[in-house]
């Protein structure tokens, strides 16, 4: 069955350099640096990436960072809490606009 998303394409991510090598090389170098141990541990960064993957709803990223967080020794509870953080921010971002709606509604109303 053809779908827009093919799990096999994740393995081909590195091939984006075929069409523009210089920018791909810069991106992957930057990507590697971002996820290295730093002020945050690689494990903490992986949990952040898992949460962001859900926010941007990228199935490739969700597959990749579910594996990565498991490999980094995260528990399922930690992984789900990270997803809830993403959900809370997304939900909060929707709801906080409710203030704008309220403001406008009050402006227009007697």
């Amino acid at each position, binding site marked *: 069955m053809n779908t827009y998303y093919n799990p096999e394409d994740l393995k081909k991510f590195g091939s984006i350099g075929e069409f523009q090598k210089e920018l791909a090389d810069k991106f992957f170098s930057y990507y590697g640096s971002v996820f290295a*141990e730093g002020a945050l*541990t*690689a*494990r903490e960064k992986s949990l952040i990436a898992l949460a962001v993957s859900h926010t941007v709803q990228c199935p490739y990223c969700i597959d990749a960072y579910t*594996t990565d967080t*498991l*490999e*980094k*020794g995260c*528990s*399922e509870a930690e992984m789900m809490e990270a997803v809830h953080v993403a959900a809370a921010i997304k939900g909060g971002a929707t709801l906080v606009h409710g203030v704008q709606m309220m403001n406008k509604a009050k402006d227009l109303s007697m």
Partner: protein
Amino acid sequence: MKSLKASGHLLSDSASQIKTLHDQVFDKLQLPLFEQKMEAASLYPLKPARTTTMQINVGKMCNQICKHCHVDAGPDRKEIMTRHTMQQCLDKLAASEITTVDLTGGAPEMNPDFRWFVAELTAIGKQVIVRCNLTIIVANPKYHDLPDFFKQHQVEVVSSLPFYNADKTDRQRGKGVFEDSVKALRMLNARGYGVEGSGLILNLVYNPNGAFMPAPQQGLQRQFKKALHDEFGIVFNELFAITNIPVSRYLDYLISSGNYDGYMEKLVNAFNPVAATGVMCRSMVSVGWDGSLYDCDFNQMLDMQFDAAYNHISRYDQELIENREIKTGQHCYGCTAGAGSSCGGNTI
């Protein structure tokens, strides 16, 4: 749950395992065979270094039936090393420069001659490592004094604990295993095991709880130390991160869960020539319960025995062994992936 052998499973047969490992994914995904990958890295045939360790599997009997067990061990396995074979090991060890003897199983403590063997090994000056599954210590009153026995003989204890909570541990090793492991670890700590300055070594082994690879062991060790100390007051020395090798029950798990192709591809793509130079088979000899000799415990389970001239402890020949070619197969990708894997954890 029965062992694969007791349930008549196809993968309890070593020839079927080797065929499965060789045929399936490598043809389908056109992956290079291990030997080709090693040859490209100028590492084939793999040759031994100096032999420093003899790992002895004293029997396949175990009180646990872990889902990933490469030995297919369990209560229904009756293969046990006899005192006669142990004596043959002692005779060869006494005349060799091997410094360390690593006892494994099954649960090695269930062998009726286990304590005699440990005492004899220490009497000839060998450092003894026991791969203790922890729960055996609390399984029966006759094993409750094992921590004292280990201390008396300055045995180094290496114990599997796949995670620092019950959920993940019990899913891999059986219901109630985590709780019993914590009890046993506290008993070992109470004798000084894992306590700084005691000289009594307690190392833990982490292996992934599924079809994925372990992270570098340093980070995992930090996590384990903090979690076990903060929540349970448990201390230990080092954590060894071990990659699950696609042999026996773990191979069965990979195939039946639909993860086999992806896991093997991942191992192949993570091949690391530096890790390959540090694999344990280069510096150890593995002895089976019946005295037969192998490169490692995994080759042992696949019946990949040494060549006939030196394939039994009674024909142990240091010179022939150190000049052999190590027997390899597609399962070897497990030890050469990423940071490498051995009985002592990462190889780099």
